[in-house]
C-alpha cells in the first residue's frame, strides 16, 4: 500500500478518560494494523507532524486513539466536527497477520491503540492482556475474537493489582504481539524469550519525516541500525535491544 498525502475530516473527537481521546475521521484511508499516519492540523507551528497509529479503519472511517502529551496532541484534542487534518500514510511496517494458532496480545496504556485494529484484523483466537495505570479504557472495542481479556491496573481499581506482565504467560501462544511503555515491552520480551515464544514489538521514537529519510528515528537493533518509521514500527522481538 503506497502511502499518500490526504485529508481527514473530523467526524467526532471525544474524551474517553482523563486525557485520552478518540478521534474519528472520514476520508480515503487504508493501512494495516501497526501502521501509522503522520498528522497535522496546523500550518507551520508546531513544525513537525505527529505520528499516531491506526486504531481502526472501517470503510471511509479512520479512528485514532490518543493521549494528550504536549502541544500537538493538545491541538488535536480541541478539534471539532468538520475540522480538517492533513495526513500522511499509511506509514511503516505493521504486524504480520499470517500466523497460525492462538495469539497473545500485551498492551500497556495508550499502547492499546494499534492493538485494537490488530485484534479486529486477525482471524485467530486472541488472548488480550491490557495494563493500565488508573482505570482500563476502550476495552469494549477490541473485537469479537478476543477470547480472554486480562486487565491489570497499577491503582488496583480494576482487574489485577500490579503489572500486566505479572500475570502474562506466553506458553499457550504461537506468537505474541506487544505495544506499550518500554519497561513493559522489555519485560514481555524477557518472558517470551524464556518460553521461546516468537514476539513482535511495536517501537516508538521521535520522528521528523516519518517516511525513512531523516534517520531521526533510528534505533540500534541486533540486525543493525533500523528506522522505526520505515523498517518498523513493528520489529521481531529478537531484534530489539532494551536498555533497562
Amino acid at each position, binding site marked *: 500500500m*503506497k*502511502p*499518500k*498525502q490526504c485529508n481527514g475530516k473530523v467526524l467526532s473527537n471525544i474524551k474517553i478518560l482523563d486525557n485520552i481521546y478518540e478521534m474519528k475521521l472520514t476520508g480515503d484511508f487504508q493501512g494495516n494494523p501497526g501502521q501509522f499516519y503522520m498528522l*497535522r492540523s496546523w500550518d*507551520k*507551528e*508546531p*513544525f*513537525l*507532524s505527529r505520528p499516531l497509529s491506526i486504531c481502526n479503519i472501517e470503510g471511509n472511517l479512520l479512528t485514532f486513539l490518543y493521549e494528550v502529551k504536549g502541544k500537538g496532541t493538545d491541538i488535536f484534542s480541541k478539534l471539532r466536527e468538520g475540522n480538517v487534518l*492533513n495526513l*500522511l500514510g499509511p506509514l511503516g511496517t505493521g504486524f504480520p497477520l499470517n500466523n497460525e494458532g492462538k495469539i497473545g496480545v500485551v498492551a500497556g496504556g495508550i499502547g492499546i491503540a494499534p492493538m485494537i485494529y490488530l485484534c479486529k484484523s486477525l482471524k485467530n483466537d486472541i488472548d488480550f492482556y491490557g495494563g493500565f495505570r488508573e482505570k482500563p479504557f476502550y476495552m469494549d472495542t477490541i473485537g469479537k475474537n478476543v477470547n480472554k481479556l486480562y486487565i491489570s491496573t497499577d491503582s488496583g481499581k480494576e482487574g489485577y493489582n500490579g503489572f500486566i506482565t505479572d500475570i502474562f504467560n506466553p506458553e499457550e501462544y504461537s506468537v505474541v504481539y506487544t505495544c506499550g511503555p518500554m519497561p513493559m515491552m522489555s519485560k514481555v520480551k524477557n518472558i517470551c524469550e524464556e518460553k521461546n515464544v516468537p514476539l513482535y514489538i511495536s517501537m516508538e*521514537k*521521535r*520522528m*521528523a*519525516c*516519518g*517516511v*525513512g*529519510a*531523516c*534517520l*531521526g*528515528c*533510528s534505533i*540500534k537493533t541486533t540486525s543493525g*541500525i533500523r528506522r522505526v518509521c*520505515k523498517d518498523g514500527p513493528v520489529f521481531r522481538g529478537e531484534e530489539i535491544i532494551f536498555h533497562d
Partner: protein
Amino acid sequence: MTSVEMFGIKFKNPVITASGTFTRDYEDFFPLSKLGGICTKGLTLNEKEGNSGVRIHETTGGLLNSIGLQNPGVDRYISKELPHMEKYDTVIIANVGGSTMEEYVRTVEKLNNTNIHIIELNISCPNVKEGGMAFGIKSDIAFKVVSEVKKVCKKPLIVKLSPNAENILDMAYKCCEAGADGLSLVNTFSGMAIDIKNRKPVFDNTIAGLSGPCIKPIALRMVYEVSRIVNVPIIGIGGIVDYKDALEYIMAGALAVQVGSGNFMKPDICLDIINGIEEFMEKENIKSLEEIRGIARRY
C-alpha cells in the same frame, strides 16, 4: 523559465533537496525528476551508525537534530543506492562528510568515478564528536581541507559552509581561494535543549544542529553578505518552506536553493516551491531568474 545553470550543468529549476533530509523514500509522494537537484545524505569513508539517544527535538519554528552522520559508507552508497538515484532526471549532488583531511580526500576520490554531478563538501557537521567541526569554524583549517580535496576532485566542488564559522566572509573567501567552484550555506546552527524534568541535556551529545524557518533571517543575511564578496555560484539554504523564502535567497544573490527541514512539513513541499516560483515569475513578467538574482544587493 525557472532553469539555472552552474558549472555547465543545467538545473530544471533552482530547488534542490538538502543533504540529510531527503531520500528516495519520497518518491511515493511525487515524481522526483521534477526537482532541480537532489543532495545525498552526508557520506563518509566508512559506515557510521550515528548518535545514540534522542535524535530529533522540535523547537519553535524548527528542530534540533543529532543524527551524527549515520550513513552506509561511500562504497555501499555507490554500489547500492546510487544506481537507484541515477534513474531520476535531475542533478545529483553527493554530500561528503568526514572528520580528518584524509577521510575527505579518499571519499571524494571514490566519488570521482561515479555519475554523480557535483560534490558538496560538508566541512561543518556539528554532530560528530571526534572533529569535523573545526574545519567549518576556522577559515585557515577550511582552506587546507578544501585545497587538498580540490587537488583530487574531478567534479565541480561546492563547499558547504557552517553558520558557526567564526567569520563567514573570511570563510567564504578562503574556501574560494582554496578552489571551491561554488558555495552552499548554511548548515545547521549549534544549539541545544535541556530536559528540565530530568535536569539534563536532551541530546546524548549535548549540542545538536538547529534548522528550519527559525534560522532563515540569519542564514539569509549570511548568503547576502557572502554573495557580495565572492564570484562563484551560491546555493542558499536555511528555513525555506515556501516560494517566497526561496525568492528572498535568490534576490539576496543565490543561484539556487536547498530545502531541508521543510520536507518534513509536507513531503512535496519542493513542488509547491517550484510552482510558486514559476507563478511569481509569470505574474511579475520575469523571463529568467537572472533578472532578479542578487537584486536586493543594490541597497
